[in-house]
């Protein structure tokens, strides 16, 4: 059927939209499952035809939305390699890093009618895997916080620093200690491959958390 290239920005935007929506749900779910915030602020909502937990706290929601809003242009241009949700303890040492490795095939082709429902199914599976990840991870110490890192190419990074996509929401180069974790265990969670998107989700976990 139709074969669109990356130049067809419209389709690139669609992929970025799908991915950013997914990342928003995934981040909320990670915060819920890893108990970064008390479960009282979460509420069941529906996404991809299954229930997911999303936070009701307006500032938290705004923060996550702003974050992804800035990430979206990078994804549109296929410049984002990884989006990482880092959970840090009270001393700001990372204890867990949820890494979403993203890649888009250079030639996006809509080859089937059921493409989007297939993608939805795959994303559903990733959500399910996040829900049960506490079986393979150790508990986090109390008082954790989180942050979102994006791994991208140098040029794009410089761009991001220069241009504030959202006012008063600057992006800065991450510290080395947030990016790399010593004594990390790698736990793969899920890989998904589809025509429009390839994503791998794994967790880097600190061997000793407390």
């Amino acid at each position, binding site marked *: 059927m139709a074969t669109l290239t990356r130049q067809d920005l419209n389709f690139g*935007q*669609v992929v970025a939209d799908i991915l950013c929506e997914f990342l928003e749900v995934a981040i909320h779910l990670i915060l819920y499952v890893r108990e970064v915030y008390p*479960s009282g602020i979460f509420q069941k909502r529906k996404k991809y035809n299954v229930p997911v937990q999303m936070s009701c706290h307006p500032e938290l929601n705004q923060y996550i939305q702003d974050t992804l809003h800035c990430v979206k242009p990078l994804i549109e241009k296929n410049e984002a390699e990884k989006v990482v949700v880092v959970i840090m303890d009270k001393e700001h040492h990372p204890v867990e890093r949820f890494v979403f490795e993203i890649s888009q095939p250079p030639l996006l082709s809509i080859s089937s009618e059921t493409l989007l429902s297939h993608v939805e199914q795959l994303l559903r599976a990733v959500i399910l*895997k996040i829900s049960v990840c506490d079986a393979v991870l150790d508990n986090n110490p109390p008082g954790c916080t989180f942050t979102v890192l994006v791994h991208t190419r140098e040029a794009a990074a410089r761009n991001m620093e220069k241009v504030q996509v959202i006012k008063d929401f600057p992006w800065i180069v991450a510290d080395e200690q947030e990016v790399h974790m010593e004594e990390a265990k790698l736990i793969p969670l899920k890989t998904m491959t589809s025509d429009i998107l390839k994503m791998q989700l794994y967790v880097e976990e600190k061997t000793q958390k407390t």
Partner: protein
Amino acid sequence: MDDLYLDNIDEFVHDQNKIVTYKWLSLTLGVHVNTAKQMLYHYLEQKRRESSGTPLHATYLVSGKCVENGSTCHKVSVVREDKLDAVKAKMDVTVSVHVYSVQRAELKDSSPLYSTDYDAVKENLKNCNKYSAIHCAAAVPMSSVELQRAQEMALVTPVEKEISKPRLNESTSATSKPSAKQPTGIMGMFASKNASKSQESSKEVKTEQKDDSALVETSKTKPASKANPMSNFFGKPSQKKVDEKPNKSVKEETDGDSATSGTASIKKSQPSPKSEFAIKEEQSKMSSALKVESKDTRNKSKRPEVVDSDDEKMESQQKKRRLVPDSPPVLNIRTPSPKKQVKRESVSHKEESSEVKRRKRRRVLKSHTFVDEEGSFVTEKGYVSESYSESEEEPEPNSQAKDSSSLKQSFGKREEEKKEKSQKKTSAANKLTKQPSIMGFFQKK
């Protein structure tokens, strides 16, 4: 049976870190659900005896009679193992307990249980009850002739609706309004229902429910239930928040209540026998509710037409005095009918129980977040009367314009407020033609 299944389950649970529900297991291994439940039980026993390695968690399905809010009801809930004894103690009579799922993870809430079954059921949609223990001989899919007839009827009385219907009020569990609500996804499972069963099953759970009243209603509903048994499962979707985390409960009223309300609603709509089945709701175990739930999402095309026709027929009886003759609008609606059905499909899957594209005032559960005196955020959920019109539609601008104009005319006769087109909350970022729901999230707050 040989013990290979134990290894299978072991692989699923430990190696793949899956949640193994009995329904998923039965569909995956191709065994009857009761066999699957026993398999899980044996597996659990064996692992617990060995008491080695990683701890396993299990959830159970408990059903029985209990008294809540002064009325007896049959309660079916999925509970975590640590709450099992407490829930059993609360019930007067425990009718059935069995393993619902086994997993390594300690689930904080019940959502993954539903997700696990979702895809498995979707794969086997046509025969997802092949291994089920709940059967109804009258429940067969409609033939194409009947489908057509139902669609035509839906067109003739398209826009009549109950005023009482889209009340998201959870309090009135007993008196279900005489209309089957559109299933609203997950919420449909939490609906309070009248327990009049039209499905017999071999399980012991069901035998509890059976008495004369139910049987009488069963015979009445049989001819009608052929049309769409799934709508029976979905009563008024109650916004009952589930407090105990992985605890789903489907509460039903039994016997006397259902009989009286059933007959009361029957009186209201005498000439239309079909409406009975719309009133009747069935008590079912979580499995069948889950199965039906997912089935229902697939059969969206069938459901709206049938249900609406029932509702509308009833409505026409009830509101005869108020209605100005509807024939002129009917003609207008006929032409864009195919697209309208398409719209209904996409719309029927709402969580806020809006049936078809309507513009009216209704009470909606809204959360309102504000900062109180101490500077802490407070989120209050309350019912607010709000003007609401359909949000998600297929992005077909032509049909939209046509539809809205025709609908507008038909609504003109109604006593409800007429909204301008501009107030339609269409989900703007609806780029994906196939899947309106993907983009809907940001608009649905």
